[in-house]
């Protein structure tokens, strides 16, 4: 990045506006303001709202790329507004629009209901088949470092919905489960503590499931947390194919149970060192 690009200067923000009570079609309003080094798009929006346009609507919360609320279409790419520095966009005009592939509620607010519904449909939780162990636990379900690492990146999903906004298949097939839900389906199915693959088949082994992925890879590029949903979809396909021919991984809810007495012992072993300062 050249020094010129991070030189504080005047930037024009083209913000898409839409109020369903007033507008029949969306339109763009322009706001010109001074941008300093390090200023994020979210901060710029706050400044526009405070100084120029108090009715401007968007969704945001944590301001540090954790909650996934402020997903927007910034210069024609889905990004988190709080993680995107204006001067790093290397453009004197910054266009901000709501995420595509979602219904537009108002201004920059997308309706994320389809994302949540698809996520919920794949049963995003550990499913045990050993109900006796659930009701009367005798120990803890263990997960080795290797087992954890095999699914680690997929656990980082913050449900921001950028991957669905980037996905060309979702654009043409709204029923496609999408990279977020499919990656999470793999995340839970591949978890060594989970025995719920067959409970998820109804939701994922369908026409609008993993086989509709066109391998564009846009989801993996858009993910602000470094998750690779496109890869997860391929791994999910492998899991489903192996299961369909009877070569799926056999899991047991009992296999990894550590007796509670050993758990207490293990906790004691990992106890922090004694205090050195009183």
């Amino acid at each position, binding site marked *: 990045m050249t020094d010129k690009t991070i030189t504080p200067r005047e930037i024009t923000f083209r913000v898409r506006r839409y109020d369903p009570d007033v507008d029949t079609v969306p339109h763009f309003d322009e706001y010109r303001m001074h941008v300093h080094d390090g200023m994020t798009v979210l901060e710029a929006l706050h400044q526009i709202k405070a100084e120029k346009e108090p009715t401007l609507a968007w969704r945001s919360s944590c301001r540090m790329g954790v909650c996934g609320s402020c997903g927007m279409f910034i210069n024609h790419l889905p990004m988190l507004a709080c993680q995107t520095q204006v001067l790093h966009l290397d453009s004197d005009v910054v266009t901000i629009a709501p995420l595509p592939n979602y219904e537009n509620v108002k201004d920059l607010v997308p309706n994320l209901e389809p994302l949540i519904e698809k996520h919920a449909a794949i049963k995003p939780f550990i499913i045990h088949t050993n109900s006796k162990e659930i009701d009367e636990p005798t120990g803890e379900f263990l997960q080795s470092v290797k087992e954890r690492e095999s699914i680690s990146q997929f656990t980082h999903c913050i449900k921001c919905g950028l991957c669905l906004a980037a996905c060309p*298949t979702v654009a043409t*097939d709204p029923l496609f489960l999408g990279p977020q839900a499919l990656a999470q389906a793999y995340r839970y199915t591949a978890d060594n503590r989970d025995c719920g693959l067959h409970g998820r088949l109804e939701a994922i082994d369908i*026409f609008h499931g993993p086989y509709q992925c066109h391998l564009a890879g846009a989801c993996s590029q858009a993910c602000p947390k470094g998750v690779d949903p496109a890869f997860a979809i391929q791994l999910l396909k492998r899991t*489903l194919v192996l299961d369909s021919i009877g070569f799926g991984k056999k899991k047991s809810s009992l296999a990894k149970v550590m007796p509670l007495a050993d758990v207490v012992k293990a906790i004691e072993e990992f106890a922090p060192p004694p205090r050195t300062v009183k």
Partner: protein
Amino acid sequence: MRETRLWSLHILVLPIIAVLLGAHFAVMHYAPVFYGMSVEKAREFSTMIERGKSITQLVLYILLLAAGLYHGMYGVRGIIRELPLTPTLAKLVDVGIIAFGLFIFALGTYVTWWTYSYKIGG
């Protein structure tokens, strides 16, 4: 049936298509290379009938027909079903694709059998 099985079959028939289509090309389009026969001669009715009387050809062509049709029909279904369809319409598309595929398979099989059982000279 699970979509996984339908999709897996659609991938699994690919090597069958590749081999049998290769054989078809060798017989029909590359006859001068493989059989020392002109393409025109390879396409003549009498040559076709002569070839068609082989049981190997009968079996392989029916297999190629089945594999090609399945792969093609699954692909067409994928394109059509990607359109925003109601569940009823999606079901209709599935049924229509199966019916059309079976009809073409029956027609192709009939032609292949007709060639196999054709009596030269009446």
